[in-house]
């Protein structure tokens, strides 16, 4: 009998067998197998904390496995450090942005394998090749000598991608590369991935966006709690619901919660009038009533984060005003927090977390003073409040005493959300609340946001996933180039219309 699957005949390029990784106090991987073939997109799926990043860090030489073996071309190899991995042709794009702000784009791309003659940089060569790579990535506007610190998050992600491409890799590992990208950028990324695989390069691709996996992936390996629960499933043969069940061990209703509609008489809680910030954005007006969720849709770099941060007082507006409950907000974050406004920032590591502090202190960062009595901390009460949210959000592992650094990316995001849940907000500003969050938790977060709104909060959500904005929000503002180009009920608009508006806006 001849096997119909042409892939079966291909020798695996890379094989990881029985990988175990123990951290102090945690067994992150407990016997994981992975087999990757040349020219395929191999997707790695799993809930937050399942061990995906840990696995690929072992492959990249950033962590050492406690047990298990790695084979390349069926030859066992050891990967003691990142240099070794790169030498073997394994290039990695890490989940957390790994660029150096003080260096230029070209310097970042060639960091560690500089184009140099006798230690002296060949700057024009580097610039030329950078320009070529950026052209290929569809970003000619990111020029080689630009300082990376001045690029928005998405730009940094592109630079990371360019760095991986600049190495002549046989295996490219991408850990949630699409998390900070908008739909247009994602399309671009997929094109690059297909080009790579066409050249015989194997791509290991991690994402929590299941539609993406469907479009892009060839085969799938699913991790759960540090173990492989399914290897090398063919994407085409595996329905999404099965995948979710494998990952979470249960069936998750992957749908947005009902929108009960905002009651007629609901009072406006947040009123933003003609707000502007230099030439980043201007004349932004919006009103959010109690119980309403307003979404800001737009492309990366359109200024949505800045709008949220300016409303919050973290940036000093150059024009306009913000009112909460009818009272004008003084500038400054503390005034906003005191007035019951909360912000979940976009970059959880740099803007949100105290990585070396326990989870409960991260969760109570904006409330510990309120929980305290006369300046004396009440850590018992803090722990209790934190534990309640950890359970509600299914944060894993469920301990509130472990350091935030040891949580997986998605669980860190949940801890940030928990901070404002403990605080209790009249106005909640959420910047990419589900970035890096797995499907199961995503559904929980959606229903949570809706519950908060139902309890009378005014919520503003920014997300680069337009379906998410449309599915979750009552009303949508489409932002293009720092201007609101459309405002209307979320039901009356679809993804295409949003993209059209954005395009028109940026042309205009």
């Amino acid at each position, binding site marked *: 009998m001849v096997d119909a699957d042409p892939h079966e005949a291909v020798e695996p390029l890379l094989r990881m067998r029985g990988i175990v990784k*123990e*951290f*102090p*106090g945690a067994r992150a991987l407990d016997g994981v197998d992975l087999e990757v073939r040349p020219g395929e997109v191999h997707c790695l799926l799993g809930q937050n904390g399942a061990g995906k990043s840990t696995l690929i860090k072992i492959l990249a030489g950033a962590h050492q496995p406690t047990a298990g073996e790695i084979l390349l071309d069926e030859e066992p190899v050891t990967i003691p450090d990142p240099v070794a991995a790169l030498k073997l042709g394994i290039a990695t794009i890490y989940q957390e942005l790994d660029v150096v702000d003080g260096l230029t784009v070209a310097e970042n791309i060639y960091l560690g394998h500089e184009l140099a003659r006798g230690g002296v940089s060949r700057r024009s060569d580097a610039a030329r090749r950078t320009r070529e790579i950026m052209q290929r990535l569809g970003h000619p506007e990111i020029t080689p000598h630009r300082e990376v610190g001045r690029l928005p998050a998405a730009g940094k992600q592109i630079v990371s991608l360019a760095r991986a491409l600049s190495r002549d890799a046989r295996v490219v590992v991408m850990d949630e590369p699409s998390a900070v990208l908008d739909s247009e950028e994602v399309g671009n990324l997929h094109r690059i991935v297909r080009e790579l695989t066409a050249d015989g390069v194997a791509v290991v691709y991690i994402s929590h966006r299941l539609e993406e996996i469907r479009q892009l992936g060839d085969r799938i390996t699913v991790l759960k709690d540090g173990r492989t629960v399914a290897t090398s499933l063919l994407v085409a043969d595996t329905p999404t619901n099965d995948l979710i069940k494998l990952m979470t061990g249960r069936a998750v209703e992957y749908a947005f919660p009902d929108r009960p509609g905002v009651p007629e008489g609901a009072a406006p809680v947040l009123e933003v009038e003609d707000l502007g910030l230099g030439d980043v954005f201007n004349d932004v007006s919006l009103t959010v009533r109690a119980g309403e969720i307003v979404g800001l849709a737009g492309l990366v770099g359109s200024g949505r984060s800045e709008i949220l941060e300016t409303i*919050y007082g*973290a940036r000093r507006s150059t024009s306009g005003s913000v009112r909460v409950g009818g009272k004008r907000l003084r500038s*400054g*974050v*503390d005034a*906003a*927090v*005191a007035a019951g406004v909360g*912000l979940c*920032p976009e970059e959880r590591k*740099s*803007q*949100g*977390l*105290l*990585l*070396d*502090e326990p989870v409960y*202190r991260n969760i109570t*960062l*904006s409330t*510990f*003073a309120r929980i*305290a009595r006369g*300046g*004396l*901390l009440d850590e018992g009460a803090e722990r209790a409040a934190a534990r309640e949210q950890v359970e509600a959000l299914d944060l894993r592992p469920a*301990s509130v*005493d*472990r350091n935030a650094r040891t949580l997986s990316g998605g669980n860190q995001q949940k801890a940030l959300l928990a*901070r404002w849940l403990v605080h209790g907000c009249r106005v909640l500003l959420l910047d990419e609340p589900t970035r890096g969050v797995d499907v199961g938790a995503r559904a929980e977060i959606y229903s949570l946001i809706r519950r908060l709104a139902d309890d009378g909060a005014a919520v503003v959500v920014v997300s680069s996933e337009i379906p998410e904005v449309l599915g979750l929000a009552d009303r949508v503002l489409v932002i293009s180039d720092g201007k609101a180009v459309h405002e209307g009920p979320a039901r009356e608009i679809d993804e295409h219309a949003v993209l059209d508006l954005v395009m028109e806006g940026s042309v205009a």
Partner: protein
Amino acid sequence: MSARSGLMGPALRMGGLVFALILLVVVGAVTAGERFMSPGNLTTILSLAAVTGVVSIGMTFVITSGGIDLSVGAVLGLASIWASTLSTQYMAEDYGWWVIVVTALAVGLAAGLVNGALIAYGKVPAFIATLAMLAAARGLAEIIAGRRTQIVDVEPFFDVFQARPLGLPTIVWIFVVVAAAGWFLLNRTTFGRRTVAVGGNPEASRLAGIKIKRHTLYLYGLAGLTAGIGAVIMLARTTAGSSTHGTLLELDAIAAVVVGGTLLAGGRGTITGTVLGVLIFSTLTNIFVLNNLDSSVQAIAKGAIIVVAVLLQQWFASREKATST
């Protein structure tokens, strides 16, 4: 397990320091015997630790918050001179010894608040702002003192500060009280929590609604205040104010704090560690003197011992990690 790393962690992290201190005590007892272990000598060690100790408590807060204060020594000198000239000569005899104390504390606090304002609101890096204050405070102290040592001649002041309640000198008690208050402030109050948060991630703290500028102002004010307390102790010990008081004290204080285990980058601070660090340094000096060590050899030994203390601490910390798995 989490409780274990919560309770045992710090204890083990202190292990290296306690071990180093015990080692020093053993060395002292072996090399100098009786003379080292005598109650009088132990009191001397504590008395000598008092000035650096008090200042190091304030420094622990500043460093925990990710800052640094190079001006504490100069501010101590300025406070000592101000208190000893202004108050002693013009007022203290009429108004009592507490004029000296209040003046010293007020001068320290004021200088600290100037530092804090420059850093928080002027956005001058802490290193630079406090270096500038170092220069300025020394200069001002010299002008006020007319480059003379100002001898304090207020008997009631010494009645209080050279007394020995419960067998220990008042200045040692001051150190104990300041250390205890510092420990409480850092570990049990919202002020301490804010300090750690600001040091760990200033941007996240700001976005969580902590007023980091105001807090920074307070922190440097606190460091200045402890320099003022240090000035009072210095006056009690030396009976004189001088613009040279506290020369290079900032380095001693920073060394004690960092050897104690507070992260220079901010985000982690320990008062217990600081106290141990201060005691290690003053015991070390005492042992050197008891053994009549040449001062050049002392310097080399001191360098070596600092490194060993830190290495020991790290070794214990890595054991802690191993234990908690």
